[in-house]
């Protein structure tokens, strides 16, 4: 049964036999040999005297070094306890790996012809560089930010240096280093596995990164020693010599904040913090603030906290923003923080819409996004006092309704697209509704012959075209889009999307199946790129010069035009609109609509809500909220919509679109849209 003590001893001993660790016995021996050689070269003293000098008591058993050993022993225990709770490389790498799939819309295979060794070297080098660069950066912050310096000072308070001074670290700093290591490793691992798969491997010597091995084997341990081992000046601009790191530990003001780098000096060179060593320059190690260093554990572990708190208080008195104030001062009191959190949760619960009130309620299942629905809900609730609960989902609501059966709490179904609406009718999920208001306000061709569903708004499927197109006069109808004029100039989302399928269904209705297929083939032949993205992406493609014409729903243009994002407004700015077939049958329209759920317990209220949606107030909202056209003939389109130009709509029975959808899908599959 392993105990903490045996675990501890095992891990402690492991540090000396693990070549990925700085104090691996091989590196220590290498450092001793190099140290010996360097000293011999400089002094030509006898071997015996040199060994005595290397391991002299005044260094190895000084108060400072004894503190190093104690910190080393205690920190090892602390880190063992913390390690399982730290953010792991794999966790971060997994998250990043997943995100890369979204950024690259899949997983491209890169440099497939590369030999495995080349990828391995590339990965190993990248990992070494990322690790070293992140060490430089964190080290720099530890010196530049007073709160962090309070902890890093513990390391710099060493007055004698031995290879074990590398462990003279405050645990808070240890945590920061562990986090840095996880992040830098994760970036490399995720990026390389994503692009190279199992070809990404680490080139190792004795299990350690080959570059890290080289760095350590070349006497890295001498950086914490009194052996003045420097490199030629040119090399010290590339690699940090042990002497340069000793300069970093110097108590002389001219050496402060110099040579942050671990292995490479280039980071210091770039960051303007490089200090090349000068011959025979004497250095004393320590903080250089004139104060006596307290090497007792209590001081080393606790005083950084007091100093950090002092720094924070100083910041706050200089007027930090309220948020940081809250975080820092309140964090000091776990009790008060807990109290505040409890209060916040309680307040949320009290305000939560889930708290049912006694008033009339209506449950809506909506495919329409919440921000499109909410203005209607607010207006309806203000008018009637009815409380409305919404279940929003982009997919699967019909299945959910089916599964719930008679127990379903749904009263109203709201969705977009006639095909989706007719799925509800097909599965017998909608109740027939008798309402004079609905019958009068929704034209016959925009409602179910069996009165199970009704359209509430119309959206036109139109062309967005590049502004100032010379041959615009050749684009009067959908049919024109298949002509050779537009070869390589058309963009569209995939054909199977309900909006495109509905358009093709309308073509079948107008011109017959054969002609519709020929037309669809013509459009596909004219595509500038593989069908992809949504309607917004097509306008963007026009802006980017990928194509001249795109098929979009009209409201996307409005959304882009009034977007808060300047980028979106630029896209809209690049395009203008064409309403096709104005001289013939009119532009194809699709609808948003809804109906009453078959098992609704509040059918009267549900019908009242549908009636509200065709009222003048709500019909205007459709235009204002989402640039959609009203279905109620008594209500004019919004001013913005009118400014885009008058349009004549194709008034084929909208239910026919749903009936023709399977044929339209077959055409899509055949022509590969």
């Amino acid at each position, binding site marked *: 049964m392993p105990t903490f003590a045996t675990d501890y001893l095992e891990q402690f001993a492991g540090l000396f036999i693990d070549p990925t660790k700085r104090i691996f016995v091989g590196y220590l021996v290498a450092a001793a040999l190099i140290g010996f050689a360097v000293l011999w070269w400089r002094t030509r003293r006898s071997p015996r005297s040199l060994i005595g000098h290397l391991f002299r008591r005044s260094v190895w058993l000084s108060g400072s070094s004894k503190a190093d050993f104690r910190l080393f022993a205690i920190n090892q225990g602390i880190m063992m306890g913390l390690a399982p709770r730290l953010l792991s490389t794999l966790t971060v790498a997994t998250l990043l790996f*997943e995100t890369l799939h979204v950024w690259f*819309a899949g997983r491209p295979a890169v440099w497939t012809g590369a030999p495995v060794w080349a990828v391995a070297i590339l990965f190993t080098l990248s990992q070494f560089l990322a690790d070293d660069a992140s060490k430089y950066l964190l080290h720099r912050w530890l010196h530049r930010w007073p709160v962090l310096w309070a902890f890093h000072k513990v390391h710099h308070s060493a007055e004698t240096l031995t290879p074990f001074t590398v462990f003279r670290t405050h645990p808070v700093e240890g945590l920061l280093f562990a986090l840095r290591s996880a992040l830098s*490793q994760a970036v490399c691992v995720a990026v390389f596995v994503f692009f190279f798969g199992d070809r990404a491997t680490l080139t190792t010597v004795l299990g350690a990164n080959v570059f890290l091995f080289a760095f350590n084997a070349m006497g890295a341990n001498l950086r914490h020693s009194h052996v003045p081992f420097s490199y030629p000046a040119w090399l010290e601009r590339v690699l940090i010599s042990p002497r340069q790191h000793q300069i970093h530990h110097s108590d002389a003001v001219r050496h402060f904040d110099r040579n942050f780098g671990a292995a490479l000096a280039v980071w210091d060179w770039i960051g303007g913090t490089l200090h090349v060593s000068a011959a025979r320059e004497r250095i004393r190690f320590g903080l250089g603030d004139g104060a006596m260093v307290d090497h007792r554990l209590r001081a080393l572990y606790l005083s950084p906290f007091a100093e950090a708190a002092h720094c924070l208080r100083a910041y706050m008195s200089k007027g930090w923003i309220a948020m940081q104030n809250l975080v820092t001062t309140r964090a000091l009191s776990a009790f008060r923080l807990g109290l505040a959190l409890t209060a916040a949760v309680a307040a949320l619960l009290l305000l939560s819409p889930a708290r049912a009130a006694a008033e009339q309620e209506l449950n809506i299942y909506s495919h329409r996004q919440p921000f499109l629905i909410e203005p209607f809900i607010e207006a309806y609730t203000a008018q009637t006092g009815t409380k409305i609960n919404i279940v929003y989902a982009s997919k699967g609501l019909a299945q959910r309704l089916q599964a719930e059966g008679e127990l379903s709490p749904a009263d109203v179904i709201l969705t977009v697209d006639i095909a989706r609406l007719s799925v509800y009718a097909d599965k017998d999920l909608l109740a027939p509704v008798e309402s004079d208001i609905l019958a009068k306000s929704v034209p016959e061709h925009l409602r179910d012959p069996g009165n199970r569903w009704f359209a509430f708004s119309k959206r036109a499927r139109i062309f967005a075209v590049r502004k100032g197109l010379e041959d615009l006069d050749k684009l009067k109808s959908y049919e024109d889009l298949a002509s050779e004029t537009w070869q390589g100039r058309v963009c569209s989302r995939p054909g199977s999307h309900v909006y495109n399928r509905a358009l093709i269904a309308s073509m079948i209705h107008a011109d017959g199946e054969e002609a519709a297929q020929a037309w669809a083939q013509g459009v596909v032949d004219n595509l500038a790129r593989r069908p992809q993205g949504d309607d917004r992406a097509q306008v963007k493609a026009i802006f980017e010069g990928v194509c001249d014409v795109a098929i979009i729903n009209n409201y996307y243009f409005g959304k882009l035009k009034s977007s808060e994002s300047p980028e979106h407004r630029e896209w809209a700015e690049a395009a203008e609109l064409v309403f096709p077939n104005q001289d013939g049958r009119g532009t194809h329209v699709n609808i948003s609509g809804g109906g009453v759920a078959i098992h609704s317990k509040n059918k009267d209220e549900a019908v009242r809500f549908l009636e509200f949606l065709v009222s003048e107030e709500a019909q205007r909202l459709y235009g204002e909220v989402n640039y959609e056209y009203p279905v109620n003939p008594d209500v004019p389109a919004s001013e913005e919509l009118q400014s885009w130009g008058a349009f004549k709509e194709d008034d084929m029975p909208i239910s026919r679109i749903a009936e023709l959808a399977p044929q339209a899908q077959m055409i899509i599959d055949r022509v590969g849209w």
Partner: protein
Amino acid sequence: MRKHVFAGTAALTMTLLAGSALADDKVYAGFPITVKGYAGDKTTSVAYSGQIGRQALHDSLKKLAGKGNGAANEELLAALNLYYSGKGEGREILAPASKGAFVIKQTTIGEISDTNLSGKTYGGTITGMPNNRTGEELVNFWIEKAATAEGGADLVNGYDYPQLISKFIMGAVFYNQAVDGYLDENLSAEKKPNDQPYSDGAAYTGKEHSWDEAFGYFGAPAHALNLTPAQVYDIAKMKEEAFALADYNKDGVVDLKTEMVFGPAYYAAGADKSSAGKENATNYLHSIVQAFLDGRKLLVAANGEKLTDAQRTELRGYAAVISDNWEKVLAEAVFKYAGSVYKDLTKLKAVVESGGNEAEVLGDYVKHWGELKGFSLALQTGKDNLGETAVRLNRLIGFGPLLPNASQVVDIDSDGNYLRDQGPSFGEYMLHMLKVQKLMIDSFGIKAQDNNVMGDMADLSNALGGGSSAEND
């Protein structure tokens, strides 16, 4: 009488070969009759031919489901129905059938047992496909589709019916019947007591036969403990060199009733084989068969008496080992095929983007997706409601695969037509597959993890080592 001879021969052979009776102890066969007052001529109480009959029906149905020519085919539909829900004469065993030197003893279903699959298919609703169909309704729906699909596959909508039907039945019949019926309800004190024959005049007690039937559904040969997972795998593949391994009684033929490997055992062996000798090695096949054997020996020791509470508790312990491992086997299969689908998507995306020939990749992709979907639905037919895990699994996989033209089946109308819509991007759907793999690890703790997409990353992270000691520079 035949069984008597077989058991005797087997015992004698093994005694002679191994020089002790130990090896025989490892075979699921020859258990004595313990029913009080049994008057028939049987000499052993082991019987699970109905289950083996269904294994053979399943294998045959799968084979037949791939025979469509792309047009309406009433004859094929009738044949498929015969193997799924029919009974009686005329049902030749289409698989596993003799192949070269690998000779199968039986050639018709009737020689094993006159049974069917439909009557034993999971009766709950399958929420992972539209329209709340029961397990049986779903198989019937797929059978109708298979009858008109060329080679059993509909590449337009993305379905490989032989795979869907087969993998789903492995759950909805075999796994469900075993873990939700025989190894669960039938282990209660009231149902199928051990001091009564299973049915009037039977040679086995209620509990003995329940246990044997569950064993039959697992589909392992009686001598599975004498075989390595790799050997069991080879027997299922009917490799010539595996014939001798399968023919335990050395009569020159492989008896489907006792010597053959079927679906669930094959997948258990597959996971064990792929992970053998590694840190993450699994032992599903032998754990399950050993638990069956231990439970059966307990029943022999009960000697036809009512089980005590302590005995039933012990028996439930063995049942739990079987159920848990079996569930893991299905989860491992979901994991493996999510990995295959992921890899196929990588290829498919490259082909689509370069305007290459999709057909080459599409067939494999649709096949792997069918295996993934079938197993994911099978996993949901156990004794426990998987709750959130099931919801996530179904949403991640969807009702159909993402197709090259960016569409995906989102519903099925009341006439059985598929309704499609624009699906997620390739990247998003690949991400779904990663999440399916993660879900299988998190929810079921599976270890073999064949086709692990994230495996390279874990290996690489380990190679870099941790930064858990407080070092400074």
